[in-house]
């Protein structure tokens, strides 16, 4: 198990900058998830750690060793690819044994390692099969098996569950988490799926446009998003956002929206009249209480709860609740926006501290 240190790492393809001075320290044994929309540079960063892409500037260290100029084979890391990248002409056992054979591991040890990994992943009866005779989920397991037989310094995952159907993805997600707990291996996991990021990570690194937007535990990112990007990216259904103005009425900090005004509990360093973006998570909107009136646009029952789409003075809001309120489309409903659950972002989209 080794720590991975990334400091000031940049990447350009030709004249196109992809990553801008990324600095990130991954502790030994930690499970870090890089999450962001496609094109944000998360996969490129992972491939740079693996040695599949050159580093344009900055330093990458694995276990304290500078690896910038080391080929992948000298970095002692394992990687699980989105396409699994199983060797199609080799059996499952040979796929897993390949890396050990290249290291001239004694035959008996290879056998032991393969059987241990196969037992852990439930691949025992499939060892002699070729990849084409496996289902998507089984291939994914083989890819995992190929990574764990080596006991590498770190595991890199590049969207490993994206090719699986929803149910299998949920299942494998739990398996990966269990596996990490058992092996305790340093892991860096790339995904665009914020649920995967939330459920798997010790720490999430949210990325956009080649920059790190926020680093923190899943709940930190959920409860205190550092900026509008993170606020909008993490959480499903997504956080509601609407514009409002800040003012001090009778010395009390107040948010002014065409349809309502909200008095804040505590003050913040904002100019009177400052334009803000206000965010509130759908589950924090309380229906049937409070003094604000909204019109019901659409009702989506999810079984678990209900998502109600509301409009008030041109602002659309989604409210989520575990109850099944008798909502009529087109009817008016009263709602409350609890001020302690509001997220405020300034004109630059940065979180306002309160």
């Amino acid at each position, binding site marked *: 198990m080794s720590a991975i240190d990334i400091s000031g790492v940049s990447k350009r393809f030709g004249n196109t900058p992809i990553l801008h001075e990324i600095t990130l320290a991954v502790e030994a044994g930690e499970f870090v998830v890089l999450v962001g929309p496609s094109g944000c540079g998360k996969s490129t960063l992972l491939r740079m750690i693996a040695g599949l892409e050159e580093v344009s500037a900055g330093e990458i260290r694995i276990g304290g060793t500078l690896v910038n100029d080391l080929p992948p084979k000298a970095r002692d890391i394992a990687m699980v690819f989105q396409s699994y*990248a199983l060797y*199609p*002409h080799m059996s499952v056992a040979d796929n897993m044994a390949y890396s050990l054979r290249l290291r001239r591991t004694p035959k008996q040890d290879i056998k032991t390692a393969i059987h241990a990994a196969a037992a852990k992943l439930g691949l025992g009866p499939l060892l002699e099969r070729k990849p084409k005779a496996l289902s998507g989920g089984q291939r994914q397991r083989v890819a995992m098996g190929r990574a764990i037989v080596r006991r590498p310094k770190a595991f890199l995952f590049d969207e490993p569950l994206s090719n699986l159907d929803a149910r299998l993805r949920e299942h494998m997600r739990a398996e990966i988490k269990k596996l990490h707990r058992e092996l305790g291996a340093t892991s860096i996991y790339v995904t665009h799926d914020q649920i995967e990021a939330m459920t798997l990570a010790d720490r999430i690194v949210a990325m956009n446009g080649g920059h790190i937007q926020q680093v923190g535990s899943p709940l930190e990112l959920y409860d205190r998003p550092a900026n509008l990007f993170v606020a909008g990216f993490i959480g499903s259904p997504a956080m509601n956002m609407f514009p409002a103005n800040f003012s001090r009425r009778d010395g009390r900090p107040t948010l002014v929206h065409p349809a309502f005004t909200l008095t804040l509990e505590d003050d913040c360093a904002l100019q009177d009249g400052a334009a803000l973006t206000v965010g509130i998570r759908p589950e924090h909107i309380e229906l049937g209480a409070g003094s604000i009136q909204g019109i019901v646009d659409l009702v989506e029952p999810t079984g678990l709860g209900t998502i109600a789409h509301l409009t008030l003075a041109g602002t659309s809001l989604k409210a989520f609740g575990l109850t099944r309120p008798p909502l009529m489309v087109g009817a008016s409903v009263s709602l409350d926006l609890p001020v302690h659950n509001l997220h405020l972002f300034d004109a630059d989209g940065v979180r306002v501290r309160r």
Partner: protein
Amino acid sequence: MLRRTLYWSSHYLLIGLYVLFALFPLFWLIKVALTPNDLLYSEGIRLWPSRTSLEHFRFVLAHSEFPLFFRNSLIVSAGTAVSVTLVSAAGGYGLSRFTFRGKPLLVALMLITQMFPLVMLVAPMFRLLAPIGLTNSLTGLVIVYTAFNAPFATFLMQSFFDAIPKELEEAAMIDGATRFGAFRRIILPLTLPGIAATGGFVFTAAWSELLFALMLNSSSRASTFPVGLLSFVSKFSVDFGQMMAAGVLALIPACLFFFLIQRYLVRGLTAGAVKG
């Protein structure tokens, strides 16, 4: 039901017509090769002679220089197939996997070589090869054929490499292989169908090439069989029977070759089941 039957019967009818059309010259070749000389001109045009004989084959094998031409052709074609496959596998891999300065220019140059008629190059080629003793030589032919076939074969190989996901090599390199090791142990075995197809294509191209074989090699010692076939044409007559018999014999290696690589070709069409 009726429509289906109609569809399939017209389907097979069309295929049948095409096969008939394509194979008829071959049938005629065999028919003439088996017709004895005395019947060749006396029976008129018939689908099958009233009497067949192997006299032409006997003559070609025992009394002509055909076995020598045949051997020369084998050496030249096999040599060309091997050298083009090596060159084009390496070149195709490079084009498929690497970006480098001047790559578009290189590709354009390779395409240009395919654009003008080979006849234009006969004289300069002769001038180039004669001083270094590569005319009247099988080696000379192998070099010329390799040069002319390599660009197309390289593009062909590139398309086969393009079909293999890059992740496979990357996985192998992370597993501990060097780039060359990943190429040899992972990519090459998966490209065997492509290599077989390329080899087969080049082999047949070299096997039937006439222009350069005729112009560069004047002595019968270094003649290939297409040139040899011409020797059955004399000033006063054409010995069709012997010519056709030689032609039938010349088909054998090409058939054998394709028979050997056939399973790779078929696999080449169904391969690609790499990811789910």
